[in-house]
């Protein structure tokens, strides 16, 4: 026979409710005391009034709540409808399309070299059958550097796992420089566009 059980079962609802109120009261008092201690320490350590600035500065940095403007008061879609003139081809391009357009127009950037190579490869194919079929398989899956990349569209299934870093290093590197890829591009003679 447990002493605990005897005393606990002797409870009625009013007593339980009173107990609940007391527990709640204790918790609230705890929270209040916590705050008092925090504040008192902040006062004695000297950092209580630290975030009070004068009224003028407070006004300067108030949160802005107007339409079309962010909370700092800056316009954020200011450049949506602007148009820029491309210095290369002298066309008027929308601002958000300007950077990709420049990439292609000036012949710089990853995509433009890929497109150029693709054009060359397709023009080669039209002239003669490409002998480098086997090797191109590997190059197709190379992200940065590929020639004969029009085969990407046909997605040839080879037995090799396209993601494995070690692919057969056959006669692949006819033109390309061995080693780090980013520097390859400038060394290549495959570019159709003059820089």
């Amino acid at each position: 026979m447990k002493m605990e059980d005897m005393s606990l079962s002797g409870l009625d609802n009013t007593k339980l409710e009173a107990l609940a109120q007391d527990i709640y009261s204790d918790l609230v008092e705890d929270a209040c005391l916590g705050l008092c201690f925090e504040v008192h320490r902040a006062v004695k350590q000297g950092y209580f009034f630290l975030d009070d600035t004068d009224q003028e500065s407070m006004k300067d940095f108030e949160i802005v709540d107007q339409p079309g403007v962010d909370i700092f008061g800056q316009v954020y879609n200011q450049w949506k409808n602007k148009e820029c003139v491309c210095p290369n081809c002298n066309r008027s391009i929308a601002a958000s399309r300007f950077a990709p357009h420049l990439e292609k127009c000036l012949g710089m950037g990853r995509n433009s070299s890929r497109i150029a190579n693709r054009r060359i490869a397709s023009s080669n194919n039209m002239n003669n059958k490409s002998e480098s079929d086997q090797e191109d398989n590997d190059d197709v899956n190379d992200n940065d550097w590929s020639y004969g990349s029009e085969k990407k569209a046909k997605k040839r299934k080879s037995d090799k796992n396209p993601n494995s870093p070690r692919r057969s290093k056959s006669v692949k590197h006819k033109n390309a420089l061995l080693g780090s890829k980013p520097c390859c591009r400038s060394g290549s003679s495959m570019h159709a566009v003059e820089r």
Partner: protein
Amino acid sequence: MSKDSKMRATINQKLTEMGERERLKELLRSKLTECGWRDQLKAHCKDVIKEKGLEHVTVEDLVVEITPKGRVLVPDSVKKELLQRIRAFLAQHAT
């Protein structure tokens, strides 16, 4: 009455041992912060401090000024929620 006080002691002990008291404390703190109670009281603290002087204010001063106001300022929804949880705990562990 000693049966009751024994019972109360037991329950309080359970409350602490099972971690429920800590959880309730945390819950209360976060709710009070969310609803702006802390900021309200802090502002009141500023007044007290300015009145008593920055150098001379004591913990006692703050406690005496802040606690009654703090009790009153707790929003009803927070009070209800806490009481609900306490009652649920009691229902589970006191009968």
